[in-house]
């Protein structure tokens, strides 16, 4: 099926698949079992230019755009959803700095993040939840030529491995977006959340205790932090979640299809049984539908449409792709019977991982609120 990929995007998809199948696939069980962050794979992806696709060439990216990023996330998640999920959070600060940061910030941080030499994270959610960011308690109080930050953040992806962490805090005039480097006094990653899925990607709690942050670390304008954070979450976090969902569903579907063609029951492959065929058809159709809906906002962003105007399209993509993923990863497991629950067949991993996407980038219910407001307005 033709999604209007350029020749470069076709080649990128092929290269990403080649990387995923040759460098990642043989190690998935080992990495997922140990739960260690795959630094070496992230570096290799960076060296290949896969991390900086939405960043411009002048800052070390390639400017290939959002659809290209979606395709790469999909290809990684098809083989190992955790690696796709790395992009969901790992690109947030890169996007925020490029679109709202100063020239100095862009030059200093984006190139190393594109190369995978450094890793970043972005923190908004607190213990009060992520659905109402205005209720956050973390504060950034003016102090001379900078801020003193106090508070805690929860469920922050990549925080433990991040060299630099972007965050939003209450400040004068509203909320401000700032960032801190690893090792800054007063900033500490306090806990790794035990999670059922995305085992090699840490999700952490972190705290700020009288943490001094320089004025030079302010992203955008003071008091206008949400104007930087919300489009970033939408353009990168939600589209990223949709991409991971698409890739994982594709991986689960391919696994189930292969299994059904090989598994013999009553003297013939179970793929000949209509009951199984119908399951496979549902999966195949769902994936195609979710893919079209998810690619649309990515294509429109590449065409220059503002993220703000695409909020509903992006929410729809995240909502549908994750819904499709959960439904179909479960279906894949069902189609494979007891084998579907064996780690060696990986379908159970896809299902565990997809549970994490229910909340990543905003809950499914928040996506519905965004869409609901728009259609009832």
């Amino acid at each position: 099926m033709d999604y209007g990929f350029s020749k470069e995007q076709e080649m990128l998809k092929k290269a990403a698949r080649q990387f995923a199948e040759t460098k990642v696939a043989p190690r998935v069980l080992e990495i997922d079992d140990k739960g260690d962050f795959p630094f070496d794979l992230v570096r290799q992806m960076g060296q290949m230019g896969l991390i900086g696709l939405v960043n411009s060439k002048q800052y070390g990216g390639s400017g290939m755009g959002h659809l290209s990023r979606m395709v790469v996330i999909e290809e990684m998640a098809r083989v190992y959803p955790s690696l796709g999920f790395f992009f969901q959070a790992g690109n947030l600060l890169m996007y925020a700095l490029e679109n709202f940061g100063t020239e100095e910030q862009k030059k200093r941080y984006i190139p190393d993040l594109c190369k995978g030499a450094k890793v970043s994270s972005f923190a908004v959610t607190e213990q009060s939840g992520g659905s109402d960011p205005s209720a956050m308690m973390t504060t950034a109080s003016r102090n001379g030529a900078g801020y003193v930050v106090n508070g805690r953040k929860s469920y922050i992806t990549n925080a433990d491995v991040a060299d630099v962490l972007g965050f939003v805090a209450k400040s004068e005039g509203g909320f401000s977006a700032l960032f801190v480097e690893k090792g800054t006094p007063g900033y500490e990653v306090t806990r790794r959340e035990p999670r059922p899925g995305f085992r090699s990607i840490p999700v952490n709690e972190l705290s700020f205790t009288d943490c001094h942050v320089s004025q030079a670390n302010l992203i955008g304008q003071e008091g206008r932090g949400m104007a930087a954070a919300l489009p970033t979450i939408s353009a990168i976090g939600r589209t990223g979640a949709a991409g991971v969902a698409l890739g994982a569903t594709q991986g689960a579907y391919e696994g189930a299809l292969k299994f059904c063609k090989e598994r013999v029951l009553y003297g013939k492959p179970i793929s000949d049984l209509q009951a199984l065929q119908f399951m496979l058809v549902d999966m195949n159709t769902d994936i195609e539908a979710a893919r079209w809906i998810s690619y649309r906002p990515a294509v429109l962003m590449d065409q220059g449409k503002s993220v703000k105007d695409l909020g509903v399209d992006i929410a729809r993509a995240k909502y549908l792709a994750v819904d499709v993923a959960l439904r179909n990863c479960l279906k894949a497991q069902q189609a494979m019977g007891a084998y579907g629950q064996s780690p060696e067949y990986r379908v159970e991993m896809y299902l565990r991982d997809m549970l994490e996407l229910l909340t990543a980038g905003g809950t499914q219910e928040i996506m519905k609120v965004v869409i609901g407001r728009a259609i009832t307005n």
Partner: protein
Amino acid sequence: MDTVVCIKQVPHPDHFSQITLDPVTKAIRREGVPLVMNPVDRHAIEAALQLRDKFPGKVTVLTMGPPQSREALEEALAMGADEGVLLCDRAFAGADAYATALTIAAAIRKFCPFSLILCGCETADSGTRMVGPMLAEFLDVPYATNVRAMKVMDKGICLVEADMEGGCMKVELGLPALITVNRAVNEPRIPDVMGIIGVADKLLSTYGANDLGLPAEKLGLTGSPTRVAGVWEFKKDRRSEVLKGNPKNASSDAVARLREWGGL
């Protein structure tokens, strides 16, 4: 040092079950089967790129095939090759190994100065392993096949280790020469994003029969001295037999039975 790498686009090995054959010409019907660069050709490209790091020069990738073969060349350019040459003409269609080698030799002689020619040792589709050696003969250069390791010395000498049945042969070749490599020679790189973006700026030339100066009767099916007389599928039957008795006797029986069935 200028290197020419000869590559081929072949049906994707994962889709071989979808391949059908033309009942008249016995040629492979490619319609509907995804095509990829012949897997071992990637190793030949990688070898050329590694050599270029030590001995600066140009790496040209060349293929003969239908227009879609351009995709394989573009992939090679994304890996890092400098230029591509596509030999594409209906007159080339149906060429056997001899006519293919003759055509490629004419193109290399005319358009691609070289110190070294690299090929994959075999193609995943027809697998004759003949085009490389024939090409060397037509170009009158020494060659080594099935090479697992190679090293170019400063004095225009190339040392290679070539795999043979049950052993390995060390060969010294004076350049210019031709080498066909196997998969053990290196690990081919995956194209990176900047390589992919850079393809659009690289030269990819297309030449037809008129550009090569070869008479029409030497090209394609007409110029092919071999014809495929017949093609058939292997029937794979499974036979099973339980051998009873103590393990020593059973294993001797098993060996005898396998010999009898032609399995050893």
